[in-house]
């Protein structure tokens, strides 16, 4: 009888310690999860800001300015445009 009680007592103590450690682990993991979720949110914010920046850099007026002034590009005159159709390409080459 006494032996059985001792075994049960031991089992209870072990189980109690188990609960404590798993609770502790759960909290640790939860904190990690929380931190990662915050990071994800921050990255999303950063993504939005980068997207905004991309849009600001890539506005058509800026592109046109760069093309015209920096790269000295211009729209070709009508006389210099040769129109090529798919049929002509597939047909006999001239």
């Amino acid at each position, binding site marked *: 009888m006494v032996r059985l009680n001792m075994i049960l007592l031991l089992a209870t103590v072990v189980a109690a310690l188990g609960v404590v450690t798993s609770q502790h682990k759960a*909290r640790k993991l939860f904190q990690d999860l929380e931190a990662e979720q915050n990071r994800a949110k921050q990255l999303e914010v950063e993504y939005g800001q980068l*997207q905004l920046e991309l849009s600001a850099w890539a506005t*058509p007026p800026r592109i*046109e300015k760069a093309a015209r002034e920096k790269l000295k590009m211009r729209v070709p*005159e*009508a*006389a210099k445009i040769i129109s090529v159709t798919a049929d002509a390409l597939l047909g006999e080459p001239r």
Partner: protein
Amino acid sequence: MRFKGRILHKFTESPVLELRLPAWRSRLMALVIFCCFGALIGRSFYLQIINTDFLQEKGESRYRRDLEISASRGRVSDRNGDVLAISTPMKSVWAIPADARLDPQQTKQLAGLLEADAKELSHKLNSDKNFVFLQRQIPPDIADQITALKLPGIGQDKEYRRYYPTGEMTAHIVGFTGVDDKGLEGVELAYQSQLLGRNGSRSVIKDRRGQIVEDVGSIKPPQDGKDIQLALDSKIQYLAYSHLKQAITDSKAKAGGAIVADARTGEILALANWPTYNPNNRDHLSGAQLRNRAVTDTFEPGSTLKPFTIALALEKGKVRFNTIIDTAPGKLVIGQATITDSQAHGPLTVAQVIQKSSNVGAAKIAATLPAQEMWGMFDGLGFGQAPHLGFPGEVGGRLRPWKTWRPIEQATMSYGHGISVSLMQLVRAYTVFARDGDLIPLSLTRAGPQRVGGTPVFSQETARELRAMLEMVVQPGGTAPKAQIPGYRVAGKTGTAHKLEGGQYADKYLSSFIGFAPASDPRLIVAVMIDEPGIAKHYGGDLAAPVFSLVMGGALRTLGIPPDAPLQVANGADAPAAKGKL
């Protein structure tokens, strides 16, 4: 001995025991103790049952926190996914004046960071309100610096600020939001309910260091606003905006608008207005800048309405393509009014009436039509009804019931006076010519790639004949050779309308051009309107047609639509083909 004798004395015989306590004393004691217990029971009843909610709440408030999870507003992007409006987190700084006791040095520091006036700031801090916002929408890095000052009674909240990277170019179509994420104009207002995010919430247990230990209760996840993809094409929008702006500056005009629409799907690819504003900085906004003229302003369209009258006459068999109408001497008297042409023509075919834009010709053709049928046609084209795009402030224009029409009014309506429409309605109506006689609804958002089926207004033959007539307008002898685009067949119609001022036609004009290309299989419709040009050359063919040509040419090239006409080689290297044919 005596002492000894006393010792032997028995306790039970002690004389002290002879004394009897009165019975009421013990009862009193019992009562007092009972009352104490009663008080304890009463108190525990009060705490555990009556006051339990309050106490539990107080207890929980020591470790439990309700957190709001903020949701962001949806993005607005163009058809290629380029962002037109996006929200990014900002901070707002508030103060509880009663707690905020700052010394002058601190106030100065804070004012410097907030870029505010120190006097005004201290005035705000000394007010008797419970809560004041000091500054809203400040960037996160400055907010961190304010946190670092550790000022009492000053707090921060997270909020979002909306940015519009394309700025004034797309201001009228995208619109803007107010400080609380409330859409105030344009798409931001029209799609407010979809764009708006719903904040979520969760309650958590926090430890002494403020770290979240665990979730308690259920989590309400935040719902981010839906992203809206518009049919708009940024490149075409830029073409429309920049060419319109240039033309208005050159002609010293008051205002203007331009619309580019896809003739197959009804999608609006560009919508530009001038004057405009920068939605990122709305400090000095005037009503004129805010007006989305293409949608909210109606005007008497002038000659751009002639093709509809002619189409109806063709449809009803009153005239044919080659029927001769005598427009000499360029004047027509109806009742007391006289209709004049800007230039007298002799006998013209019906096609030439369109080509030369003869008011007399159009009025004579309109005279063969019953008023009810003409009204039915205008009504069928959507004039007099708002186009239901979902834009705020859409107008339907004015189309009077046919029973009240006098003959002179029917005549003037045939060339676009006595009826008012918005540029958007005009574009929609022109889908009947760009397509095979059916009218399709326009859409701000992306439609499917399939060809939308429309409501038939004219027959296929009529639409094709009208297309041929409208093509003549841009050819030599027409009113708008400047609308030509090298490599493409173009069809369109000019409009030059007198403006009404206080019921009288003033010496102010509204010059417009609306057309489509490629004429062999129309893909795009472009409409340009220029309001009150300040120069003598105020005709639609001189002012609006070149803008049309530039915008349409650029848009066709951007979309990679194959040319349907041989490229005419210009005579001189410096003259573009379009001008070479003048």
